[in-house]
């Protein structure tokens, strides 16, 4: 059993743990072995920036001991207790470094846990480690990490998406059954799409942001990464809920997302195809899988309608003003004064301004600097109204488009990303081409609504993602539609995640030695 353990879904792992078929220690060891086999070395995936063996095993031992003892404490264990998880290295953790993929926070140890991490610890999910990302979550390929690229398990010469490429690759490559990501413009959903995994961007406020290093406060949201919709839904349930430490956190009761994901009935569900998120700019293979998904849903009794969201034309422009504006402010704190990197100028007087300048010049990578400069400019006196102010108006228009669309449809559907995973390095020197990757995911962040990406099949051997969007606070509706599509597409076939090519573990190991 040990050899296959990593290929179970989180729900299956939880059940095997519950009935005593496997132990959490075995499960954690199997994942650590898998990480050892595929993650390190030149050709390795590099999904993890830090692996916390001892801590993960200690949690696993604790869970096993509780289960062995039985009684009320065992009964009270969270259903996912003992199932390991990986955490995007943008989320702060006590006892494990948090780098945000930046030299600025190399070796920095947070003195406090993010709220989601507190909840994961309380539920006793062993934390395997921290996953790679574009620096401060700025990118769509994980190539902007200061600690090297992460490779896509489907083709290791291709990008795993970004910014959460590490979490998606880890889950796709069976290094972890579950992971946390953060999504500001698609950083959970687009990596999910290009790695054949499931990723949810919850309703803004559904999950506490306390402890997620902020990129754009009004857009950021932590969410689950998994191989199945149900796994993602259960992890979402665990991390959701009101947090008094986050003013923007919703006071709502957490709905039963897992149950919604298990609902396979879509008869009568009105599914809106967004006119603006198809056609030009989308690869043929992506559009073909999208069409097949629509056909499958229609056959299952869903009503497919087309909705018009004319303001989406401006979504990318608005996003690239609001996001950098907030990011330029949020990243001001990294100045070498209190924590993290501190770089002194090579010559000349040692003043605070010059130390701050030298630290930021050396500590931030190019993409981060690009966005800080953009945002600083957009917020400057005399430009604010034209840039930040106008972008906020576009945001309102996009929210109105969604509101109108949701009068015609219960959920909306689109391809998650316009293309399958592209080769490493292809778009690194063309920021605008890179930004276009997020064209279908960004509107949900601007409107604060939930979005989920599920596998929709392969194009040229690479995964294609299908995105469902639902009104704010209706995350359960998105899980229901996504779960239904997943069931329809796997009725006669192996799930996509099980079809990933075997990784050349020997190569990774050799290179790592």
């Amino acid at each position, binding site marked *: 059993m040990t050899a296959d353990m990593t290929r179970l879904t989180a729900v299956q792992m939880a059940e095997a743990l519950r009935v005593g078929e496997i132990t959490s220690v075995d499960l954690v060891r199997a994942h650590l072995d898998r990480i050892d086999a595929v993650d390190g070395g030149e050709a390795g995936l590099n999904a993890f920036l830090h692996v916390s063996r001892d801590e993960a095993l200690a949690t696993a031992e604790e869970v096993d001991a509780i289960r062995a003892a039985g009684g009320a404490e065992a009964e009270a264990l969270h259903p996912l207790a003992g199932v390991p998880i990986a955490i995007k290295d943008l*989320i*702060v953790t006590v006892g494990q470094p*948090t780098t*945000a993929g930046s030299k600025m*926070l190399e070796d*920095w140890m*947070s*003195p*406090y846990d*993010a709220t989601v991490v507190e909840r994961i610890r309380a539920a006793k999910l062993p934390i395997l480690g921290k996953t790679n990302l574009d620096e401060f979550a700025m990118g769509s390929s994980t190539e902007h990490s200061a600690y090297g690229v992460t490779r896509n398990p489907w083709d290791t010469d291709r990008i795993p998406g970004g910014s959460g490429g590490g979490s998606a690759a880890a889950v796709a490559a069976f290094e972890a059954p579950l992971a946390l990501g953060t999504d500001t413009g698609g950083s959970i959903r687009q990596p999910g799409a290009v790695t054949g995994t499931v990723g949810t961007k919850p309703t803004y406020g559904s999950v506490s*942001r*306390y*402890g*997620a*290093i*902020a990129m*754009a*406060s*009004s857009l950021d949201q932590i969410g689950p990464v998994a191989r199945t919709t149900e796994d993602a839904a259960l992890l979402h349930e665990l991390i959701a809920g009101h947090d*008094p*430490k*986050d*003013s*923007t956190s919703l006071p709502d009761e957490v709905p039963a997302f897992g149950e919604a994901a298990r609902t396979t009935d879509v008869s009568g569900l009105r599914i809106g195809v967004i006119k603006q998120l198809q056609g030009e700019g989308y690869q043929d293979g992506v559009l073909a899988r999208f069409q097949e998904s629509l056909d499958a849903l229609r056959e299952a009794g869903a009503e497919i309608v087309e909705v018009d969201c004319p303001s989406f034309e401006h979504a990318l422009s608005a996003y690239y003003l609001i996001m950098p*504006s*907030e990011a330029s*402010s949020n990243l*001001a*704190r*990294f*100045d070498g*004064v*209190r*924590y993290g990197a501190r770089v002194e100028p090579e010559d000349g007087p040692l003043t*605070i*301004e010059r130390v*701050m300048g030298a630290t930021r010049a050396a500590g931030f990578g190019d993409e981060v600097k690009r966005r800080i400069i953009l945002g*600083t400019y957009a*917020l*400057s*006196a005399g430009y*604010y109204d034209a840039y*930040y102010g106008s972008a906020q108006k576009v945001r309102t228009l996009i929210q109105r488009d969604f509101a109108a669309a949701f009068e015609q449809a219960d959920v909306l559907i689109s391809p998650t990303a316009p293309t399958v995973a592209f080769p490493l390095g292809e778009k690194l020197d063309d920021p605008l081409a890179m930004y276009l990757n997020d064209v279908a995911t960004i509107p949900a962040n601007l409107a604060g609504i939930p979005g989920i990406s599920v596998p929709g099949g392969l194009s040229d051997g690479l995964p294609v993602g299908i995105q469902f969007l639902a009104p704010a606070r209706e995350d359960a509706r998105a899980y229901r539609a996504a779960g239904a599509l997943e069931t329809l597409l796997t009725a006669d076939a192996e799930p996509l995640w099980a079809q990933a090519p075997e990784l050349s573990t020997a190569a990774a190991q050799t290179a790592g030695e």
Partner: protein
Amino acid sequence: MTETLPDAAPLSFQDALEQFDPVLGFEVHVELNTATKMFSAAPNAFGDEPNTNVSPVCLGLPGALPVVNEKAVESAIRLGLALNCSIAESCRFARKQYFYPDTPKNWQTSQYDEPIAHDGHLDVELDDGEIFRVEIERAHMEEDAGKLTHQGGSGRIQGADSSLVDYNRAGVPLIEIVTKPIVGAGSRAPEIARAYVSAVRDVVKALDISDARMERGNVRCDANVSLMPKGSSTFGTRSETKNVNSMRAVEHAVTFEIRRHAGVLTAGGSIVQETRHWNEDTRTTSSGRPKSDADDYRYFPEPDLVPIVSSPEWIEELRSTLPEPPAERRRRLREAWGYSDAEFRDVVAAGLLDEIEETVASGASPATARKWWMGEISRLANARDVEPTALGVQSATIIELSGLIDEGRINDKIARQVLEFHLDGEGSPAEIVSARGLEVVSDDGALTAAVEKAMAENPDVVEKVAGGKLKAIGALIGPVMKETRGQADAGKVREIVMEKLGVS
């Protein structure tokens, strides 16, 4: 380009006022006395070990998020109402961005275009009782910065060898009160300045929203001054003198700036829009940093905080908790107590209104209450280097002491000693009097003996008294008091002397 003549000699105040009308403006920062900080659960406490009252939020750690302190919002609304302001039903915080090491996030969370309170006024009482109305532009909430201590050099950041930073103060809740331009103050500008700051301090004390101790920086004042030529209504260029943190300093800083501006302007120069440092030692200001209206703080609405919504019901509920306005209360008390203007002013200046009011309410006469608080209690406090209120004197003690005097059991001098023994923990005044045997000696035999002894030792005095100079009796009372260890009833001594010498 116009010569700015920064070194032009200040004009005399009188000369300045002959040629110019001053325009004032104040930004007063009030530090609130909430238990925790503006946006975090870290304690809001003064004087602790550096960097102990901190949290991830007020250190600006990666990932930390602010949460608004509801008590601070309540204080802001109450202050806004006490300043006769309109309260915004919904308002937002904004980020004021600048890089400075005392500001952990490199922005200050403040309010920009949506202050919680706006358009009010404060009636300020001047020394002669005249009321001057100061219009309030706005009162908004913000957070304080940390405290920098510069090592080496002049004590300013420029030229320092290194700087230490204490973030205990970072995130402490502040309310900034901004006045509209104050015109028409004329030669009373310095007095109005002092009276305004004093009135603000009185209001926040009465609301009990701040410790209001200027020496600790609980109330900090930036004073804006500009001049316009007599007859003109176009404002001149202003200077902003920062951190003028006592009533006297406010008065002096405004006086100096009026004189300095006038000096520069009459010498043909122009005023530089800048911040100025106040130098207490020389009672002058010196140039700080240039400041223009175009300073770019890249304000934008704080996305980590939802708007603050204050329902009309809540606002009205808070309005009902407002104390009597300090100026009205003073008028009422002065009338009720019948003090002279000078007496009342001294009481106000000593900050003992509350104590005297309570003592009077407990049954003491206003005169007795004033006599004790302004007299012996203040003297003892001064000797012990504490505030009179810090001695812990209860109204009941004062009433007991004055009762003992009225009954003739002790005299004033003994009563003062009894108070001191009481403060040293010797028990109630009556207990002390009996334990120490301090009762006035009115026993005729003992007194007569003491008087006879004094008369025998001072024949010259006896001669004078016998000759009709009754005033000289005082010279005999001293020795008698000495003989009876101060416990003689002075009136009785007088009677005995007069009786013995047959004078009246």
